[in-house]
């Protein structure tokens, strides 16, 4: 499901037009982005939690050139599925 489908579904479920739905979604996303940038953790009941984690700097060797690289630390947004959601997908089997 891509963004358009999501918006149309949201509009259908909320009985609002697609533009409003898109606006809301965009606003929601910017809000989320702002809070994540502040390293906030967002947990959604029944779905999961978004949290920002710091990955420490590390040394790697470039496999081709053989040069040693110092990779700087970075902040990464993670999503951890909640137990309820995990239970939901637990018995799911691949379609094929």
């Amino acid at each position: 499901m891509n963004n358009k489908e999501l918006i149309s579904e949201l509009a259908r479920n909320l009985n609002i037009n697609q533009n409003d739905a898109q606006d809301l979604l965009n606003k929601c996303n910017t809000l989320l982005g702002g809070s994540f940038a502040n390293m906030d953790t967002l947990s959604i009941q029944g779905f999961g939690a978004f949290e920002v984690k710091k990955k420490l700097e590390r040394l790697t060797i470039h496999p081709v050139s053989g040069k040693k690289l110092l990779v700087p630390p970075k902040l990464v947004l993670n999503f951890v599925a909640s137990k309820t959601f995990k239970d939901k997908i637990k018995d799911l089997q691949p379609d094929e």
Partner: protein
Amino acid sequence: MNSKISLNELTDLLSDSAKISKKEANAFLKTLFDAIETNLITDKLVKIKGLGTFKLIWVENRRIANVNTGEIQEIPGHYKTTFTPDADLAEAVNEPFAHLDTIVLDDEIIADKPIDPIDDYLNELKNRPELQPEPDAASADSDEDEQPEETYEQDEEPVTSIFAQTDPTGGYQLSQAQEVSMPEEEQTEPEAPAEETTENGQTETETEKPATEPIPDAHLPYTPPAFVESENEQEPTASREWSYEERYEEEKAETAIGETETIDADATEQKNKEKEDEEDEEDEEEEKKRSSSYRWIIWMIVAAVAGIGGFFGYTYLYGLFPFEKTPEQENAVIIAPVPVVRDTTAIQTQAASDTTTKSDTAQATANRPTEPKRKTIAETIEERQKAVREGKQTENQNKSVLATEKMVVGSRLTKFALKYYGSRIFWVYIYEANKSKIDDPNNVPIGTVLDIPDKSVYQIDKDNPESVKRANKLAETILNTKP
């Protein structure tokens, strides 16, 4: 900042920013996440612009061993949820560290270890010439340091050329003289004594030539190399351990020359050979008399002299005085540095005792280039074999006999050859050395005590194809002559 927010707080924020009621905001967010959830389950993939992508990824079933019990359990295949944030969002999140870039670390730091062994190797190279003269030389004189370096430089040029003309082993003599003084001793012995006699005052006519020929050797190419060479050769002299100092001083010069000389003196070889054989005996008798206490004193002296000589040689070589290249000793003596003066005077006194010094030297110099300088291995061997044969067996034993072996059941000459020389083919030399005891090399009676000749006597070298070839040839002749 770092706070935990829930759906309620997000609702508040959304209602504020979108200017909608909290109810609407709450409804929106709920439907949003519900939609994500359900669609994720049905589609396994949900893309939200500005947020990221949710995916369900199938994980195949796998077996794991319980860490505690060691029990093997099977984890059934299942889906796992992944979320990849949008590039924009990821960037925004990583803002605090955005300015940091991956740094390529200096190669120097990485190359730290590979460099070390090279340094060690270089140090080794540096140290080696210092070690070469002799162990106590290093402590004896600080000047010592200069000498070996210098000789090293010189080695590569004319010295080697001189040596190159001499017998094939001669090329190694510089290093051999210092590292393995014993074989060197043996090598020089048959030759050096020729000069001794000049001092001991044997017949003038005979000794004249060997005495004078050294002089052109030392002075004619009286360029640095020649000088250096004479310095180097101190070691062989030292190994011969002369008991009195004066004599040693003189000998030093002579043996120095002696090595190159004997080879040069091919013309007079015939004459010398006879003498050498006699001298061989004398030499060995002297050797026996020497007490070990003298050794140390002499080693020390050698070290000191080498050091001083090296220092002066160094200063002179690098151009205080241009060296005269005339064969006249007077000049040489005048310009020669102090330690060298000793050497040269030794030669000079000797030379002066000869009435025909100058003419002889002149002659010698004239002859020298034309003289066949190359002494083939065969010739040296011939010489040595002669020495072995003619010299009394008992006396020669010390230097020419590596070991003695008694023939027992299962013994073969070839086995001894393999044991001592590393190749079976050299059995011929064992046979050669024990000819008197062996009638048939294929059938040596049990109980026969065999002298295993030293390698140097027959120039035995299993790595030298020439030597092997010679042994082969000899074997053929021996086997053909024997019925």
